[in-house]
């Protein structure tokens, strides 16, 4: 067996199979027992998550229920392919996640992405950023699915190891939803692009560290075709509406093998695949290559014989190729035939049930302990700090990115990107709006994976709340280094426990997810990067709360108050200004979270609230800076709430990141304050929107100067 399956796994396979696998079977096991397909290191941990209240969490994508509809959403990583070939890597990442949604008979209606890169200062990084952005643009726009929101994070830990996590969301009436399990005595049809050599072995590739020489890896990258994808979407939705069509799954990692074996395993029946029937893109392609090819734009359907003619008719209408590749029957084996000869027959519960590792027990390493105990003694003067933070790649507008993505196609998009913290779709079928957002906090996860992942989930939660939405459920993408490393084991397990505990307290289930290990090269690892994508609900008769300010708005902070004793470990300012990472991460206050949510919703309903934004990266001043620049409005006020603060403390109070806070605006100071007093809401008056300068505590900055950077910094960096 090839070297990428270790000796122990090899023994385990032989033991369970009660024989030595043949050459073809070696390939099958190498793919299905890989980390990418088999979740060997993560499966046991993922079971800990809170699925209560989610819809179909065991399917290609889970979702949440709204009225008589399912809203399905899932995030997936395409990190390794993007490191090698950014353009195709990103494009096929989108292609893959769209198919996961589509397989349920849900029309994909929105895309989001969470991108992480090194600072855009070198030729190599710029190449990656431009390629990924264009890949998303060319593919998503052409498919006609709007790209409504997302995040971009810059940190040197992503040098040569970019993270490209894409999320898709789709809608389906509940009675139309199709599942993926086969049933006995069905015909199996493969629809879409002819199978070729592209992407052969991709799953195994994504399950190891990147090679030193990138050029060696090129062979594995799949090639996407957005036009065929658009046809495939329309054809699939028509086919799945036919009577007699029972189940569907997309061909993703490990292609035909992984889709059909999973469908058979779930359906508890045998499947016989005839390789001669598969429509091929080239001659001289080996059986194992057909099985493992990751040619894009293919879907698998299982249907009753009577439905075959209708399915082929639809395929023809959309100018797509289709072939009937096999059938299901009573039994429990996965059978591959060629020229009427059986090449392989393996029990599905061996093939599809790989050996899973225990990661536990785990221990906090001395290194992490040391980081947590570190104290930030560094500082700089406030003028310089503000100028530097205003030109931080992590705080400026993402306009350069989102203007390349069609955020309006499809007729459902309700707000422009950055006008509020989330992407919003109109969902008239259920008289509501649905919102989506994505967040990651790698710095906090690096210091404290348990609290870091909680705070990440809460950042998404607050994004939704600040826009007026009730959070319903979330998906996640767990990007980590090699699971063989003790630190990674620790941070992975703790992240999962953090997500679980937070999700239980918020009563917001996980609906789907994805794990990406081996994000490391040479001696470099990424920070644990727990990415959360969340979905929320709002009645169509209620307004979406914007984040922008207007002239004469009075600005307030509500929630936890920062002081000299607050824990601000993992704050962006320490990393960006002082090159410091350390200290304790702040804990959220769940009781207060709920009170603040009710406060914002109630102030909205009373029409006292004008806008709201959660306080996240960059703390109070970072958040204010972003909103003021986007709104093109000045501010006069007081932000530092401690006597005799020195520069070190001032930095902490202005930019420090603690949990459970929002900044809101009103034009009705009196009613707002009496609401706060009556309901015992912790609040602080910050100031007023006025003029064309940002003034606070004796400091003064020209808005126009800061805003120029805010709008153009990324464009200038990426298009010199």
């Amino acid at each position, binding site marked *: 067996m090839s070297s990428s399956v270790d000796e122990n796994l090899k023994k385990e396979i032989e033991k369970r199979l009660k024989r030595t696998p043949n050459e073809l079977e070696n390939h099958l096991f190498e793919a299905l027992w890989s980390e990418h397909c088999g979740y060997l290191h993560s499966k046991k941990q993922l079971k800990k998550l809170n699925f209560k209240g989610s819809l179909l969490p065991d399917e290609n994508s889970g979702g949440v229920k709204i009225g008589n509809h399912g809203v399905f959403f899932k995030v997936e990583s395409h990190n390794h392919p993007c490191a090698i070939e950014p353009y195709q890597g990103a494009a096929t990442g989108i292609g893959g996640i769209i198919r996961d949604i589509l397989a349920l008979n849900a029309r994909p209606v929105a895309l989001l992405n969470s991108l992480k890169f090194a600072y855009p200062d070198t030729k190599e990084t710029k190449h990656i950023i431009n390629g990924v952005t*264009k890949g998303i*643009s*060319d593919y998503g*726009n*052409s*498919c*006609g699915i709007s790209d409504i929101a997302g995040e971009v994070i810059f940190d040197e830990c992503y040098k040569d190891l970019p993270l490209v996590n894409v999320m898709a969301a789709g809608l389906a009436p509940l009675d139309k939803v199709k599942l993926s399990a086969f049933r006995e005595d069905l015909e199996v049809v493969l629809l879409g692009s002819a199978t070729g050599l592209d992407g052969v072995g991709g799953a195994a590739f994504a399950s190891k560290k990147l090679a030193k020489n990138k050029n060696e890896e090129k062979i594995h990258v799949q090639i996407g*075709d*957005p*036009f*065929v994808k*658009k*046809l495939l979407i329309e054809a699939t939705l028509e086919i799945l509406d036919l009577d007699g069509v029972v189940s569907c799954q997309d061909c993703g990692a490990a292609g035909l093998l992984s889709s059909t074996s999973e469908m058979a395993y779930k359906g508890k029946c045998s499947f016989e695949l005839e390789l001669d029937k598969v429509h091929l893109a080239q001659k001289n392609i080996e059986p194992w290559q057909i099985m493992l090819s990751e040619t894009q734009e293919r879907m698998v359907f299982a249907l009753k014989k009577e439905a075959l003619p209708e399915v082929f008719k639809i395929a023809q209408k*959309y*100018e797509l190729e289709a072939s009937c590749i096999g059938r299901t029957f009573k039994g429990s084996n996965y059978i591959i035939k060629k020229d009427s000869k059986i090449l392989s027959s393996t029990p599905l519960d061996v093939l599809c049930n790989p050996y899973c590792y225990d990661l536990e027990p785990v221990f906090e390493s001395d290194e992490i302990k040391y980081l947590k105990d570190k104290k930030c003694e560094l500082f700089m003067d406030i003028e310089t700090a503000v100028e530097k933070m205003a030109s931080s790649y992590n705080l400026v507008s993402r306009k350069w990115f*989102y*203007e*390349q*993505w*069609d*955020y*309006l*196609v*499809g*007729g459902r998009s*309700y*707000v*422009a990107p950055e*006008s509020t913290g989330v992407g919003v779709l*109109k969902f008239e079928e259920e008289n509501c709006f649905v919102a989506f957002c994505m967040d990651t906090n790698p710095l906090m996860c690096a210091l404290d994976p348990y609290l870091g992942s909680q705070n990440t989930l809460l950042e998404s939660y607050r994004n939704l709340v600040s826009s007026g939405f009730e959070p319903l459920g979330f998906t996640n993408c767990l990007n980590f280094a090699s699971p063989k490393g003790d630190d990674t084991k620790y941070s992975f397990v703790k992240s999962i426990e953090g997500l679980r505990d937070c999700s239980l307290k918020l009563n917001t289930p996980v609906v789907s997810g994805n794990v990406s290990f081996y994000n490391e090269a040479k001696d470099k690892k990424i920070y644990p990067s727990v990415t959360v994508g969340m979905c929320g609900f709002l009645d169509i008769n209620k307004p979406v709360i914007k984040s922008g300010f207007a002239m004469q708005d009075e600005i307030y902070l509500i929630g936890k108050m920062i002081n000299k004793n607050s824990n601000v470990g993992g704050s962006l300012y320490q990393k960006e200004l002082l090159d410091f990472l350390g200290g304790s991460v702040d804990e959220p206050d769940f009781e207060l979270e709920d009170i603040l949510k009710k406060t914002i919703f109630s102030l909205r309903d009373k029409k006292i609230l004008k806008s709201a934004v959660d306080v996240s990266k960059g703390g109070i001043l970072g958040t204010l800076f972003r909103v003021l620049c986007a709104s093109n409005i000045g501010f006069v006020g007081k932000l530092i709430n401690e006597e005799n603060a020195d520069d070190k403390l001032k930095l902490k109070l202005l930019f420090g990141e603690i949990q459970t806070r929002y900044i809101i605006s009103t034009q009705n100071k009196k009613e707002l304050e009496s609401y706060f007093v009556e309901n015992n809401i912790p609040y602080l008056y910050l100031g007023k929107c006025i003029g064309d300068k940002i003034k606070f505590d004796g400091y003064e900055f020209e808005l126009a100067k800061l805003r120029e950077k805010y709008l153009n910094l990324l464009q200038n960096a990426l298009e010199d």
Partner: protein
Amino acid sequence: MKAAVVVFLGTNCQVETKAALEAYGFETKYVDSNTKNLDEFDCIFLSGGFSYGDYLRSGRIAKFTPLVESLYSYVEKQRGVIAGICNGFQILCEAHLLPGALIENDCLKFVCKNTPLELDFNGTKKKINLPVAHREGKYFYRGDVSEFVFLRYLKNPNGSKDNIAGLYDNKKRIMGLMPHPERAFFNENFGFDGREIFKIIKDELKRG
């Protein structure tokens, strides 16, 4: 009034276009690329998207469909109005039903944003905002088309010659524009200026 909304393989703005037309009182019907006779319609709408993946060049492959053939005879008979939005405009230019051609944006990128425009129709000028979303939206022509231009960019997003965003033919029966009026129609966050364009079409139809 009856309008056809053309759906080629790869078209993706048909739903919004149809909804906008219906909101404006049109009876509408989707027609596909094999449609050979369009005489029943007072107005033909070529909506946005990526017909046939926009391979070769935007709008090029759509040109070789029975539908575009039937557009020629529709024009010859002077039956009604033809309007092309975005990809529809590109198709009309490729089919030489409108002068000029649309080529890759100067910035070499896809551009999706709300953009200010000057609408200049029948002597009345008006400032409006409409979203654009295209990679090949730079208008190029030789000679003088200025008398046919009804829509110009105030902040040129793509390098179009003379800031041209939309124009009609010499009989004012065929119009094409890159911005998406159907995206500024139903939602206060993107404005309602798209209705101005649909009004022009309706007025032109009434004029007969």
